[in-house]
């Protein structure tokens, strides 16, 4: 195992450069993932809408109760009752909704006559729809009682309505906000891991390959009784061991950052996905290591490949924000499938065969990349070792 031993001695001589990548990654991963927040997904919280309530009718029990009912859902903004002030307030979003009760509304309503409340709202706003729902709900409930119970007093009507309207549905989120937040951060950490893992593997593997591809050393090794198969085996074993050490180091830090979350099924899927990603990353690094010839090229290629694939695959910018052409191009890199799987893991609510199959399919594609690139690399090695 002479080649295997030398492999790690070469890695040891490049350890400072590699450790810089590891520490920069860990530092940035901790900073970025701890400040990361998804602007779209949040837990449920009820919001209060700013509205203007103009009652041109009498202060009836029905209308006062409507106002009380709305009060738990809206903020009443006091404004002058002239049209211009109200329109200005609406335009500048000081208020989002104006309720105007016309004169004689209560009497007509109690007599089951056809009446309506005058509404002015911001067009197509969610708050407008919300307010419509609230007011309709109140008035429809009142109308049902009025039409079904003719001798009901206004007081009894209000009591019955309040009982009905106080009923509320309990909302239970399948994933808590804290859990979701952690999974999002974890997904971000693991997505970002692809950049550092790729860069470190390319640097490490290339550093070793470059030494073994030194013209004189190569010639010297070819003169020895060391068989090509044996040399390739030791080299691949060295590459795999180096990859595993790097991967474990990065995975270990996710356990420190996210603790018990990493022991959940989602956490384990993140780990599994990152392990599968190391295979094509290693294959590509092995190929690059066999092609490049100088240290300068090594750094340049490492940065271009790792950064380039990460940019187009949605590591730094979410895949949802990338164009179709970019994503199509990215689908020819394993990073795309890795990020896609991480995002799917983070987004999944229930893990069952239906949700897991696409994830495993993505992982299979990454394994396919690894095998294909490795085969190409071995062919290149064989051709290079061939005689001049």
């Amino acid at each position, binding site marked *: 195992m*002479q080649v295997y*031993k*030398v492999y790690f*001695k*070469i890695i*040891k*001589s490049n350890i400072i450069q590699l450790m810089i990548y590891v520490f920069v990654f860990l530092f940035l991963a901790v900073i970025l993932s701890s400040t990361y927040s998804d602007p779209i997904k949040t837990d449920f919280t009820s919001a209060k809408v700013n509205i203007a309530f103009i009652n041109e009718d009498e202060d009836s029990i029905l209308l006062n109760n409507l106002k009380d009912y709305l009060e738990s859902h809206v903020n009443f903004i006091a404004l002058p009752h002239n049209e211009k002030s109200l329109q200005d307030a609406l335009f500048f979003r000081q208020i989002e909704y104006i309720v105007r009760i016309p004169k004689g509304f209560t009497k007509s309503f109690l007599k089951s006559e056809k009446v309506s409340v005058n509404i002015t709202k911001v067009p197509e706003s969610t708050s407008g729809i919300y307010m419509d729902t609230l007011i309709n709900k109140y008035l429809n409930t009142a109308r049902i009682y009025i039409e079904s119970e003719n001798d009901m007093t206004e007081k009894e009507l209000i009591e019955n309505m309040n009982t009905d309207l106080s009923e509320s549905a309990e909302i239970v989120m399948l994933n808590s906000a804290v859990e979701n937040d952690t999974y999002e951060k974890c997904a971000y950490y693991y997505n970002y891991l692809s950049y550092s893992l790729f860069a470190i593997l390319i640097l490490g593997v290339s550093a070793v390959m470059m*030494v073994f591809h*030194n*013209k*004189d*050393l190569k*010639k*010297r*090794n*070819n*003169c*020895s*009784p*060391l*068989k090509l198969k044996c040399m390739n085996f030791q080299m691949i074993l060295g590459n795999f061991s180096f990859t595993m050490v790097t991967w474990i180091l990065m995975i270990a830090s996710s356990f420190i950052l996210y603790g018990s979350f990493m022991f959940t099924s989602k956490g384990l899927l993140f780990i599994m996905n990152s392990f599968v990603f190391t295979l094509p990353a290693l294959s590509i690094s092995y190929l690059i290591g066999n092609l490049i010839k100088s240290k300068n090229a090594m750094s340049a290629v490492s940065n271009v490949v790792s950064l380039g694939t990460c940019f187009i695959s949605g590591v730094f910018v979410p895949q949802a924000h990338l164009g179709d052409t970019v994503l199509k191009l990215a689908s020819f890199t394993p990073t795309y499938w890795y990020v896609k799987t991480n995002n799917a893991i983070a987004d999944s609510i229930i893990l069952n065969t239906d949700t897991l199959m696409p994830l495993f399919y993505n992982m299979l594609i990454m394994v396919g990349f690894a095998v294909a690139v490795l085969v190409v690399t071995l062919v290149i090695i064989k051709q290079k070792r061939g*005689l*001049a």
Partner: protein
Amino acid sequence: MVISVKNLTKRYGDLVALDHFNLEVGEGEILGLLGPNGSGKTTAINCILSLLKYEKGSIDIYGKPMAPEAYDLKRKIGIIMQNVAVFEELTVYENIDYFCGLYISDKNKRRSLVIEAMDFVGLNDYGKFYPKKLSGGLLRRLNIACGIAHKPDLIILDEPTVAVDPQSRNNILEGIQRLNREGATVIYTSHYMEEVEQICTRIAIMDKGKIIATGNKEELKAMINSGEKITVEIYNPENRILTDVKNLPHIVSAFFHDSFLTVKSERDKNNLMVLIDYLKTRQIAFGKIYSEPPTLNDVFLEITGKELRD
């Protein structure tokens, strides 16, 4: 026969690097492959080691055809390349251990062989040094230690003394002779005729991809017409002197190079006293005077019409 090369032909495009190259190396020999740069020495070695494909010919080592997969043959060969081939990332000890380990798997045996090799090339005090801390001469010695640590039966050295200081050069040459005394057959390529003359039991002179002469140094020198070469410093060189000298008996050639007159005599004839007598009689003022027997360069010059170091 350790090595038998027959009709080896190797081309690089239109250039014929080896032109029906034939070579035989017997057991226990130190064969010097002498030739100017570009004569095909390294190409021949690379073909013998199966590092290069060739168009025609055959190469047998220890009676078996040499091929890239002839691992049993490779196990018997120690190679010291023209360029130093060591790992910058490994210490002197680790480097020798690595190359020795390609041939010897037993750890304990290897340890003693590595120490022996370090001792052999005089690197005992540098075991923990990295190659970049070594001087050019010490680096060459390390290169040799890496090639011979596994105690090969056949050692091939391709210009191992290029850019080496005289002290290291002597150390290397003595080492090669010692290895030969211990039983190794050696092929030594060089364009330094003095080195080849000093250590080789047989010499093959190469030019344009062919062996043009073989034999020991005496046999090679016997092949040419000229013998003793006298060089005299003449303070006032004149054509008259040249004409007179050429007319002296047993003179093959005479010519001026600046103020130095070079006179070559016929084989086995000495003209030093005759020449001195002539200069004294004619009262020609002269300074330094040297007489030297013919060299391999003279052999090469007479056969090819050019100097070895052209």
